[in-house]
């Protein structure tokens, strides 16, 4: 498929043509995979970055000018998502501590048990998330864990932006109650 065809498909998508949009996204996904692989993203993470790029393409499809070539437009968005992925990974690494064999043991000094506390907190959060109603859980997962924008999360979940805001607010109240319930006396 040449670039003109993609331009036409995206222009039709801007007018709300769902089949043209599906075809465009399906064909563009292969192109994005190749671009993202070239940025040095690890093999097992490429598909995540492809999905984030597709969500961005959806959110900013109004910025595409059909008189301009479509590949540089797609490439710039994909590279940006790859940079963001790397930034998130570096930021996560700065807060992570690698566990060695002795890492799971507990020590008399409370400061020495921070790693264990972190692991327990993560397990508790996973448990509480599982207890949330599906709508609230989806809102937290999209907005807080995958860090999508409200517009992107609305596109993925099919919920309105307002409904997502309400669901997130309610989820936070529920999580707070669950935390109080399980808090050690």
């Amino acid at each position: 498929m040449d670039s003109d065809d993609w331009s036409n498909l995206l222009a039709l998508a801007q007018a709300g043509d769902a089949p043209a949009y599906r075809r465009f996204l399906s064909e563009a996904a292969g192109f994005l995979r190749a671009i993202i692989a070239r940025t040095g993203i690890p093999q097992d993470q490429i598909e995540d970055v492809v999905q984030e790029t597709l969500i961005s393409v959806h959110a900013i499809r109004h910025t595409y000018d059909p008189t301009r070539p479509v590949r540089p437009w797609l490439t710039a968005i994909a590279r940006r998502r790859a940079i963001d992925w790397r930034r998130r990974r570096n930021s996560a690494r700065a807060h992570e501590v690698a566990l060695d064999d002795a890492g799971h043991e507990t020590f008399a000094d409370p400061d020495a048990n921070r790693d264990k506390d972190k692991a327990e907190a993560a397990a508790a959060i996973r448990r509480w998330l599982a207890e949330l109603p599906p709508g609230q859980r989806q809102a937290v997962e999209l907005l807080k864990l995958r860090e999508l924008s409200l517009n992107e999360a609305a596109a993925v979940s099919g919920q309105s932006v307002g409904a997502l805001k309400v669901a997130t607010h309610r989820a936070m109240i529920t999580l707070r109650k669950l935390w109080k319930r399980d808090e050690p006396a």
Partner: protein
Amino acid sequence: MKDGTEKLIGALSEAVVPVERLPSPAMRAAQWLGFAVLFVGALVVLRGYRADIGARLSDVEFAIPWAASLFVAVTAAVAAFYMTVPGTPRWIVALPLAPLAVWLATLGAGCVRELSEQGLAVLGVSLDCIEFISLTSVPLAAVLVWMLRRAAPLAPSGTFAMGALAAAAAGSAGLELYHHIDTSTEALVWHVGTVGVVTLIGLSSGRRALAVASVND
């Protein structure tokens, strides 16, 4: 994983609705520049043109740096809007360099001559300049941020710094029309200096200012 991508493509294409295509960056830059001319022009009229403006504009030592500051505002605004369209060639960020070089070189040459003739006495303190450029930059930059956020500022810091340069240069060009500063040294220190500070503030706050734009959440 590819199943997940297929599902996502299905969900996105089902959720597609018609969108209003963004006008071209040149058109949006022209709209902002139109607003800047009206806003800065109104301030200049309110404060009163300097009486000798006709004579000053025919003096090349005034007219060349003034025209250069105007071109910096125009080219920086055009560059800022182009930077919000993914895939724009990178050379676009170099657009304001030529007028910026002319602005700095002409004021710089005058400044060297004045300092060699009169020494540091030539440099007065002009808080008016800082006040005018800062006060005009804030609303101009606010309108610019509002317009840039409708697009996709993939590099928010650079984009906002470019916008801040456009806003501050527009303020400086307006200031020259009413303010009685006749030395290049004062213009260089107070006008260009304030424009530089405003641009640096733009560079450091761009991510936050444009953070809620759709691609940078």
